[in-house]
């Protein structure tokens, strides 16, 4: 009786002093039984009185003290009385309230719910996001309250979802029905697993709710399927753009000039290591411009790889024109030398090339479709390089000469085209483009001495499928192979997909030995 009286007294006192949380509930936070504590937390959160957040936060931080009937909040400097809010001395013998993991979870939820009433939009948004997962029925009242006072449409949307999740187990079928209807609008995998139990009569007695849930699941499945397919197509495009970058240089050296360059993968490696070197240079000399190392690496990589290409062409390849099998072996030798050189210079371990900050993160189009910026940028970069090559080959004098030499070498020589210099230039161009591809690769895969070996088979496949001597063929083949293999990966796994692609290419070559885009003309024997 005395206790009740004091409570009443304190209650009135507190209400007069500052409209704080219900002292009885606050007192209950110090209860011996955990379920009493939880009940108190939930009710405090549901009431959402001002001042509650401070107390709960203190409890979560292990700085809520209890002595007999009194609770104290220690905010780092001062100790406040939990009921009156007055600054007091922490009495001797006051103990913190024990908080276990379960309580911590409850506290986090309750705090998030309380933050829904914050002035700051960003705080409210974060809280609403936090409440999207593991939200319980006890938060329904506070969510309803927050919903009523929320003006921001985005937060409101999140709150509606959270409210629907919280009321999914409500006793009233009409409330459950409304919750299902609200959730049907949110198409994420998590909602799917929430709605799935409701289709079972064992869990859900009401027929209307069951039907609504089944209906909602159908829409969600459809939208998720779309998201999955789009995600596969996007990663296919991304893979295709990488293949394209790897194969474009090859399309020039092999497709146009007929040189089998097995060291092509190592030219990619040269480009990737150039990006690494540029990154180190920027780190040590211009740390404030570190995000710009990548754009700076692009021209440097082009010219480095082109220089390596010129060296290769002048010393080895030029003596082997027309002897393709020998070229293959000699360039394989070159590739071994380049690999070992990279090992000696940079060590056998992979080196770390970081994404610049503007390339990290992504854009979320659908709940299960996130496009990472680095992939998007690489697709754009591939298009840029493609455009560059197209312009070079079709709109410049060099490109014209290259095409002339390809079509008829002696005739081109007769009309004054310096064929041997054109060979060197064209090979350098192909090598430089490989260097550009290497820069792109450095952003998404490991940079190491062996990195080029993984791409050589793939890039030859692109050129072979696309048809020799055709840039357009290489583009279509790269995109086709990329998308096809990603879609296959979706239901067969990466290795099986790769094998299936290789087998498909072998069969495809049976039907069209000249590739998709065959050169027009008759070739009895070559």
């Amino acid at each position, binding site marked *: 009786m005395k206790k009740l009286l004091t409570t009443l007294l304190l209650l009135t006192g507190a209400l007069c002093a500052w409209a704080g949380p219900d002292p009885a509930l606050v007192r209950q936070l110090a209860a011996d039984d955990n379920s009493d504590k939880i009940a108190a937390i939930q009710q405090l959160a549901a009431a959402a009185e001002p001042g509650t957040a401070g107390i709960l936060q203190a409890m979560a931080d292990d700085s809520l003290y209890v002595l007999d009937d009194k609770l104290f909040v220690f905010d780092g400097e001062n100790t406040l009385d939990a009921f009156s809010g007055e600054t007091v001395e922490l009495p001797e013998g006051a103990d913190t309230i024990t908080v276990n993991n379960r309580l911590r979870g409850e506290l986090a939820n309750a705090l998030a719910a309380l933050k829904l009433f914050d002035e700051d939009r960003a705080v409210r948004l974060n809280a609403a996001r936090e409440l999207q997962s593991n939200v319980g029925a006890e938060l329904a009242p506070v969510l309803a309250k927050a919903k009523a006072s929320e003006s921001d449409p985005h937060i409101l949307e999140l709150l509606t979802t959270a409210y629907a999740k919280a009321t999914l187990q409500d006793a009233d079928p009409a409330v459950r029905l409304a919750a299902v209807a609200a959730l049907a609008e949110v198409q994420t995998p998590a909602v799917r697993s929430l709605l799935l139990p409701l289709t079972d009569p064992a869990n859900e007695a009401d027929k209307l709710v069951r039907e609504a849930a089944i209906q909602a699941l159908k829409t969600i499945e459809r939208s998720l399927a779309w998201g999955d397919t789009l995600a596969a197509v996007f990663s296919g495009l991304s893979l295709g753009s990488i293949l394209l970058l790897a194969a474009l240089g090859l399309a020039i050296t092999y497709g146009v000039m007929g040189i089998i360059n097995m060291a092509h993968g190592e030219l990619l490696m040269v480009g990737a290591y150039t990006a690494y070197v540029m990154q180190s240079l920027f780190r040590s000399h211009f740390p404030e411009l570190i995000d710009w190392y990548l754009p700076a690496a692009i021209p440097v990589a082009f010219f480095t790889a082109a220089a390596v290409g010129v060296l290769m062409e002048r010393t080895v390849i030029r003596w082997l024109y027309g002897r393709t099998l020998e070229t*293959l072996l000699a360039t394989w*030798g*070159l590739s071994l*030398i380049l*690999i070992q*050189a990279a090992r000696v210079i940079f060590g056998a371990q992979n080196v770390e090339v970081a994404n610049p900050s503007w390339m990290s993160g992504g854009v979320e189009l659908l709940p299960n479709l996130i496009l990472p910026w680095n992939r998007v940028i690489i697709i754009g970069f591939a298009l840029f390089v493609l455009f560059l090559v197209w312009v070079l080959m079709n709109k410049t004098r060099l490109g014209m000469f290259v095409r002339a030499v390809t079509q008829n070498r002696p005739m081109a020589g007769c009309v004054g085209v310096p064929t041997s210099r054109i060979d060197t230039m064209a090979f350098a161009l192909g090598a430089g483009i490989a260097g550009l591809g290497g820069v792109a690769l450095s952003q998404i895969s490991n940079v190491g001495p062996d990195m080029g070996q993984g791409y050589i088979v793939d890039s030859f496949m692109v050129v072979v499928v696309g048809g020799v001597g055709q840039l357009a063929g290489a583009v279509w083949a790269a995109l086709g192979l990329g998308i096809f293999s990603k879609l296959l990966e979706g239901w067969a796994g990466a*290795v099986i997909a790769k094998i299936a692609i*290789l087998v498909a290419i072998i069969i495809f070559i*049976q039907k069209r*030995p000249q590739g998709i885009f065959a050169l027009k003309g008759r070739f009895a024997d070559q």
Partner: protein
Amino acid sequence: MSAITSALPLPASGRVPLTLRVFAALDRKAWIALGVFLALALVVVPVLHLALPPENAFHVSTYAITLIGKIMCYALVAVAMDLIWGYGGILSLGHGLFFALGGYAFGMYLMRQIGRDGSYGADLPDFMVFLDWKELPWFWLGSDSFGWAAFLVLAVPAIVAFVFGYFAFRSRIKGVYFSIITQALTYAAMLLFFRNETGFGGNNGFTDFKRILGYSITAPETRLVLFGLTAIALAATLVFSAWLVKSKFGRVLTAIRDAESRVMFIGYNPLWYKLSIWVISAVLCGIAGALYVPQVGIINPSEMSAANSIEIAIWVAVGGRGTLIGPVIGAFTVNLAKSWFTVSFPEYWLFFLGLLFIVVTLLLPQGLVGLWKKIMSKKQGAQA
């Protein structure tokens, strides 16, 4: 044996008995060389290994026997490669696949021979226990029988080569296209064998063999028998190849290499000639693989890597294409250099190998045998 061309003029028709034709495949000098080689491998090496104590300067160590045995397997592969490349003009970059298939086929038998001596003490090979498999997959049926394993060693490479070759040659894929596609083939197979679910031990492949036909696989006697068998297989392959390239079949094959269209217009169908030599070459590789695995004691998917298959081509190129002794010389030169380099200067081996590829293609298109011939003819020219 460098002068492989026979002194005996042969009638074109098949009236001469086969034994005589096989005998005529090599000239007198070559037969003597072959005899010396076999005597060394079958008598001298075993005696020096078993009879002499390890301290003796003439003792042949286990390391040397394993190394030479391994290189003889490689030489066998190189001869097989030369048949298809040197005589058929088809550069395969996928011969490592057939070698590994033969090795895996025989490795299955060796795995079963471990019995319950594996680290899990189970009936199944260790890696299957590790994967929690309860019984052997269907393709392991019969793998405990030596005869079946030996059959698989021949049949699996033959079937794979036949199916692939039939489709490739039928659509007249040749030259570089063919090389790249064979490379893709072996690459795909390597990926497949890397998977644990494929049932061939995944990454680790087969290893830790204990015995073969009941004999301990590490016993010196077993090693010597395997060594001798490899030598016999190599010698037999050389004789067989010499006979083959000199037969009518071999001549048509060479003609296809030099002018396929012309041969076709005369009325031959190149498909079956190419396909036959392709399958023969694959089977020889399979045999080499089967001999390689018990001597080296391990087989794993990296044998199928594209790099390995290209290395086979360089053995042939270094020795000299289109001669039969060339590949053997090449395989020995390159691999001895490799074991010396990887021990003494591991950093420089790839530089050396890379330079070898370049130097041989640029300066020695006929390989060491061609160089030898050139030097000899210069000498003779100087004497005359």
